[in-house]
């Protein structure tokens, strides 16, 4: 009965498909995600259930927020290697301060250091023109050093994770992760920022052609400083959510998210050279990486082989995706 629909489609299907994909780069990315999920389901039938999906989303969210910081930095041609340190700082400081303070006060205190790190990054990169890689690496070292020193002073205090954060991090409501309550507004904010605000426009502008932006009256240092401060703040929020999920504050809590946050942004189609990309792709990129981690955990093979496979798949996905969207 359906043959009547296909009657007038003489344009070669392949060509149209390619065009569609290069115009809407999100489609191939989502297809890649679905492909990974299907492979997972084939390897472990039954794993793709409601609970697994909820878990995947829970773990993808903090990564997606950090990758959001990375996306914004990369849009300006930068990179932020201090996101994981910022996240860890916020988490650890909150968990130790909450013992003596009200959770809201503890959270406010915990968000100060990440913002300061962001401010230092912004000034170093925006005013002194230090390479972002080096600047954020340096502040991340300094930040973790301060955290170590701080840790010594609070050993007697102990740590705790406020129930509210644990509920947000681990809880489900009707099978839906509560973390979405935080993530949907955060993601909405980032998307709105990038697409509908002057500041978002300037991130793209500065990364695309810094000189042109300057000639149009844009003060580079203002944009960059605001960007890295925002990045610090969002990293801190991601850290708080993450400690709610893991419920074990440690001095290396978010470190394993550092490289994946860069990878998620790149897989999501944001150019490391600036000016091109967006946050929707990054969210899918974070999901792809989380599913990939599951896939490799489930596969019974030597750890070495797992890592090789991880590297290969990241490279393949990025290369394939670049091919698809560049083919115009």
């Amino acid at each position: 009965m359906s043959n009547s629909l296909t009657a007038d489609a003489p344009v070669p299907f392949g060509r149209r498909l390619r065009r569609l994909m290069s115009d809407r780069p999100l489609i191939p990315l989502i297809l890649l995600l679905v492909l990974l999920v299907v492979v997972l389901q084939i390897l472990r039938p039954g794993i793709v259930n409601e609970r697994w999906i909820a878990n995947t989303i829970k773990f993808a969210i903090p990564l997606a927020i950090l990758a959001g910081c990375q996306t914004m930095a990369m849009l300006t041609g930068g990179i932020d290697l201090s996101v994981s340190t910022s996240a860890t700082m916020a988490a650890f400081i909150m968990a130790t301060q909450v013992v003596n303070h009200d959770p809201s006060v503890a959270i406010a205190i915990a968000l100060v250091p990440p913002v300061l790190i962001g401010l230092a990054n912004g000034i170093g990169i925006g005013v002194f023109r230090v390479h972002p890689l080096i600047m954020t690496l340096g502040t991340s070292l300094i930040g973790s050093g301060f955290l170590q020193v701080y840790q010594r002073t609070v050993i007697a205090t102990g740590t705790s994770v406020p129930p509210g954060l644990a509920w947000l991090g681990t809880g489900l409501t009707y099978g839906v992760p509560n973390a979405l309550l935080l993530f949907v507004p955060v993601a909405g904010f980032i998307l709105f920022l990038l697409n509908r605000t002057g500041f978002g426009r300037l991130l793209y502008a500065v990364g695309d052609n810094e000189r042109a932006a300057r000639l149009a009256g844009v003060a580079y240092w203002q944009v960059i400083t605001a960007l890295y401060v925002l990045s610090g703040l969002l990293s801190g929020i991601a850290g708080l959510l993450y400690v709610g999920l893991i419920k074990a504050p440690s001095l290396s809590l978010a470190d394993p998210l550092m490289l994946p946050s860069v990878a998620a942004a790149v897989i999501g189609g944001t150019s490391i050279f600036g000016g091109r990309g967006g946050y929707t792709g990054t969210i899918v990129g974070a999901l792809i990486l989380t599913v990939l981690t599951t896939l490799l955990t489930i596969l019974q093979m030597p750890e070495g082989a797992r890592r090789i496979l991880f590297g290969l798949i990241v490279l393949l996905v990025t290369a394939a995706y670049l091919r698809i969207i560049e083919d115009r």
Partner: protein
Amino acid sequence: MPALHHPLVDPTSKSRGKPVTTDPILIATGVAKHYGAVAALRDASLSVLPGEVHALMGANGAGKSTLVKILTGAVRPSAGSIRIRGREHTVRSPAEARRAGLVSVYQEPSLIPDLDVLANLRLTDTPVEPFRAFVEELGVPDLDLSETARDIPLAVLRVLDLARALAIEPDVLLLDEMTAALPANLAERVLDVVKRQSRSGRSVIFISHRFIEIQALCDRATILRDGETVGVVDIVPRIEERIVELMLGAKVEKTRIRAAATTGASPIAAGPARLAVRHLQVGTKLNDVSFDLANGEVAGVVALEGQGQDELFAVLSGSIRPSGGEVLVDGARVAFAHPADAIQAGIAYVPGDRSEALLGHRSVRENIALPFSARLRNWGPIDMRREQQTVLKAIERLQIDTRAQREVQRLSGGNQQKVTIARWVAAGARTILCFDPTRGIDVGTKRQIYQLMRELAGQGHSVLYYTSELEEVQLVCDRAIVIFGGRVVDVLPVALADEAALTRAAYGLPRDAAPAGVLAGTQDGAAAP
């Protein structure tokens, strides 16, 4: 179009009458090159004989540079064939072209910025002694080979580029607007050297907009129009008219008429000058420059390459700070630390190089709306509807072809230039500094820009208009301010600003002196790069 006439070349001292019976050394046929929607070349062909100086001519954007890049492997053609000494060649890289005997001096310098001259020579296997000899012959006597290319002035870099190409002793030398950025004395020497090159049996493909050079040097010319070869002519006396006809096609007459019709409005002379420059000083580049720009005036700036006009525009647009003097806007003293300050004072800058002003990967809309969000207080949510209206109005007003509006880099050069101007029309800048806005733009678009300038002036805007094409002064401007050696040497009312007068003034000659008498003096003045 011819820009500045070259007073230094004696058109009679040319070797002519070589036999043309030999087989061509280089034949290109049906060459095409597409950049996305843009067709840089459609169907170009070229045939060069041994020992010939062959001119490649065409309006801006006709595709000359692209053809040169294809011939030397710097760019891959979309179609076409290249035969060198009768054999089919696929030239994949400049290195390969060089092995086949083709060496080019491109429009932009191609020395490695971070290497010193010697290293640059080694990189290209250029013998040092011949290179040194050529450099001296080309008029740069005491070159330090250990100087880093980044620190060498543009004009000298061009000479080095040429000397390097010559030292390799190519069979075919391709020179893309070699003389455009050179002071007159250096340009003359280039012509001498090229001439000798052809006498020793080597071929030269020579691109220039200056008829006088073509006349002095070339045997034949291939003319390109909109990416197609439209004719090949022998260079004989009085061939210029024919070449212009070929270059511009049917458009030529129309341009003249329409453009002339747009001129004639006079400045609104009320209140203090919109922009006043007093005793402006920028290092050794600008010296005691003073002039006024009235409300509703289009003031032309005329200068040879590198006479300080870049610095003047950079100061007025807030890109650099002057070392002395002052700038007044509406009678009030201003000091710009950043382009944002100039924009705040209502002064917008349209750079000559479009790539300096545009966000290549972003949409037309974002490019036009960029200044709206530049300032801190406009970082918040964008009123998308209002923005859309403003942008559409500007697009309509400038008649921008927005078929490829998703990425500005895919627009044609003329439309890109319109976008850079539209931005400031939309933002409502009262004073616009245009630096050679018609560079690389086709004749029709040029006309639209002339009209727009007059319209803006009519609405009370002020325009400072630098142009390298002298005839534009009478088409667009109310006045011509001539700068030479960093000083204002003359201010001509539009009626007097014909090409001959402007040329004389641009070379620093007094208004009514005979050109021939002062030649020697000119050379010294223009030499300092």
